[in-house]
């Protein structure tokens, strides 16, 4: 039998099987990109998280509102010094092949995550665990030195380097999912192939056609299987949003996880109540190279920041109502309360421009000596629109901007090498905590493209992260944020919004700040 014949027969058989097992309660999700892997330690994108979070479950998981709730752990205790977390696993939790999920599976997964030979992109998210970074750097070679221990099959103890108030939130991340030790050891790299893979989440994957879709069905071994109202999901790969919207309109998708912004008005009229635009824990900003004259002058950076009319970006330039950003940490971030804001936030725009002109004049720039700068962004229609608009906002100050766009890989490569005067960047939170944003401005981190450096700021961040009291920690962090804003460390422009389109027949979809909507909380109205 030829390869093609085999392939088609296999497809036809899978198709038939799925057709037999398909109910009306199969959720069709437009998921954007192709997943890199089904191995939760090989992922880095939100589209991958949607699949991974349906088929795996960590010690802690998300509820419909994205709040942390017990997952594979039924409870946990934290030591008085905030460094030792002891988790009690639920009774009777199993992998999809019926094998029990044990504390050893978690130990195995964390050790594999930080083992340098596995080169997990996101291992650094769990560097708060004792010795994780040292092991990943190769400074410690014994994986058993990692601060994750199985006291017995039902008890897991995790020791941290320092008290970390957001650790429970970080445990919701896919880097903290357990792995089926018995399968990974038996199958090696192929453990993740359909047919071999076993999972511990509400669903299990049964089909993956790269470039097309991943299909999941209920995991009968999941402790909460009786509560699942949806039998399975199909996560479709489709990066063309216009095409995705057409498929949604034709009823081929129940949920779209993004949509073309220029269709928003049309959708509001023609698909009433179906387009969900909601605050999202992510920030869009410009970095200014603080190491390079004249941008090392705070007055120049502040002038550029003040002259941006943020109020028009969301409503008029993008059309999806992205809120103007005057803080570094987006509002609504957990463990923080109200963020710090730039002191000139509430000035009328005209006054902001006047003040900006004055600052530039003080810095030695004016009509006879214009400030010339290059503004770099990665190729994308929205980035271009924003850049063109901002360049025109800076024009009255006598600032001459040269726009320069490059593909994403090149753009970020150049940004990291400091070859930027003003550059576009964005950050989507890994975990819901101010530290995730404030860390972007600390000295020496890869994401600090503007290379702004302030020892007081670094000290405050360190101090905040060592503070166990959430209230006090927030105060320290707010001081740091205010310091960065007063110094115009970067130019926050707007907070992202999540953009979903949800069919009226889907129930239980709750807009939340991290845009995480697990299938287990949804149902389909027939």
């Amino acid at each position, binding site marked *: 039998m030829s*390869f*093609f014949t085999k*392939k*088609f027969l296999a*497809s*036809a058989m899978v*198709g038939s099987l799925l*057709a037999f097992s398909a109910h009306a309660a199969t959720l069709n999700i437009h998921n954007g990109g*192709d997943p*890199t*892997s089904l*191995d939760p330690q*090989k992922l*880095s994108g939100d589209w991958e998280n949607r699949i991974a979070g349906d088929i795996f479950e960590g010690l802690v998981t998300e509820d419909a509102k994205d709040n942390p709730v017990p997952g594979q752990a039924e409870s946990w205790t934290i030591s008085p010094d905030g460094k030792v977390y002891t988790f009690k696993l639920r009774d009777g939790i199993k992998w999809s092949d019926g094998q029990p999920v044990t504390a050893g599976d978690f130990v195995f997964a964390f050790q594999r995550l930080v083992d*340098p*030979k*596995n*080169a*997990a*992109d996101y*291992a*650094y998210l769990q560097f708060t665990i004792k010795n994780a*970074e040292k092991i*990943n*750097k190769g400074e410690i070679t014994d994986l058993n030195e990692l601060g994750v221990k199985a006291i017995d099959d039902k008890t897991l103890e995790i020791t941290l380097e320092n008290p970390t108030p957001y650790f429970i939130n970080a445990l919701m991340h896919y880097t903290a999912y357990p792995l089926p030790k018995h399968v990974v050891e038996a199958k090696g790299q192929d453990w*993740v*192939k359909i047919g071999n893979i076993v999972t511990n989440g509400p669903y299990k994957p049964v089909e*993956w*056609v*790269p*470039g*097309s*879709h991943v299909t999941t069905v209920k995991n009968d071994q999941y402790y909460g299987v009786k509560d699942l109202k949806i039998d399975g999901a199909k996560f*479709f*790969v*489709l*990066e*063309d949003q*216009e*095409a*995705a919207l*057409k*498929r949604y*309109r*034709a009823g*081929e998708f129940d949920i779209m996880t993004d949509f073309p912004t220029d269709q928003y008005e049309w959708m509001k009229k023609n698909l009433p109540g179906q387009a969900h635009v909601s605050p999202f824990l992510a920030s869009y900003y410009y970095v200014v190279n603080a190491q390079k004259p004249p941008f090392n002058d705070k007055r120049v950076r502040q002038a550029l920041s003040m002259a941006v009319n943020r109020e028009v970006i969301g409503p008029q330039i993008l059309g999806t109502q992205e809120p103007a950003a005057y803080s570094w940490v987006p509002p609504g971030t957990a463990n923080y309360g109200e963020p710090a804001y730039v002191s000139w936030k509430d000035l009328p725009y005209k006054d902001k421009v006047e003040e900006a002109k004055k600052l530039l004049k003080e810095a030695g720039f004016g009509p006879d000596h214009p400030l010339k700068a290059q503004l770099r962004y*990665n190729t994308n229609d929205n980035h271009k629109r924003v850049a063109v608009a901002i360049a025109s906002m800076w024009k009255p100050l006598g600032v001459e901007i040269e726009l320069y766009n*490059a*593909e*994403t*890989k*090149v753009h*970020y*490569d*150049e940004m*990291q090498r400091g070859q930027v005067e003003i550059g576009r*960047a*964005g950050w989507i939170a890994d975990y819901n905590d101010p530290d995730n944003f404030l860390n972007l401005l600390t000295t020496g981190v*890869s*994401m600090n493209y503007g290379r702004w450096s302030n020892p007081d700021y670094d000290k405050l961040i360190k101090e905040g992260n060592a503070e166990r009291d959430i209230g006090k920690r927030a105060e320290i962090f707010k001081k740091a944020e205010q310091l960065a804003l007063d110094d115009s460390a970067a130019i926050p422009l707007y907070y992202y919004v999540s953009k979903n389109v949800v069919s009226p027949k889907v129930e239980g979809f709750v807009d939340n700040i991290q845009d995480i909507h697990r299938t287990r909380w949804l149902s389909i109205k027939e």
Partner: protein
Amino acid sequence: MIKYAFRRLLSTIPVLWIAVTACFFVLRLAPGGPFDGERPLPPVILKNLAIHYNLDKPLVQQYLIYVGDLLKGDLGPSFASEDFTVAQQIMIGLPYTFTIGTAAFLIAIIVGVAVGCLGALYQNKAPDYILSALILVGVVLPNFLIAPIMQLVFGIHLAWFPVGGWGDGSIKYLVLPIVVLALPHAGRISRITRGSMIEVMNQNFIRTAKAKGIGPRLTVMRHALKPAMMPVVSYLGPAASYLLTGSLVVESIFGLPGIGRYFVNAALNRDYGMVLGTVIFYMVLIVFLNLLVDIAYAWLDPKVRNR
């Protein structure tokens, strides 16, 4: 003929090697690396990744490792897809691309030749003008414009076909992408056929056939079609390689899991292994298709056969 084919295949090996070598080094010269992106990775992670993929070794050593693996038939790993090697991905995507591409190719030939012949037979008459106008639309309008229009009309408003996806692979899912893919090629084939047919129909042996009282349909089928096909066959090689390597636009718009998007996506992602893998695959395919065209040429033209 077999000796000729074998010689042709052998002569492509140095070409293939030069292409792979050039591609390997040019790719590494391109700014940006496979792990650059909106989320920069800490140096320790980058170091681990470099070791994992041999990117920490000198470039020449990396090249020798790659060529060594290639000689063993291993196209290497893909950075963008951890669960499938480059070869596995190509083998998974190929049936989809081949199904759509082959169908589009056959439809383009049948429709193109038929329309071209009709245009030639009714030269400068109403059917010729109407068909020429329709064909012009097919040739001029790009895929990225025709595809959404067809999705809108036939998928949403008339609901005759699914808007996209492969579904269960049944014909209703394939109609729109096949038509969109076939249309421009059908247009070009029909124009080539029409021009060639008009030229052949004015030649002496056709006049002789007509003088013998053979009807126009028989004249075309028995005498004119074969010689008129020569320029069409020349076009079929590049057309087949275009259709069988997949279309980025059509596969992206219809959400099909073929290989059309591999090369562009891999180049943008600096997925070195996948870029090289697709280059090798495309080249082998093009060589093979050109060989088929040459064989078809020899069948059509006795002068070529006896050379």
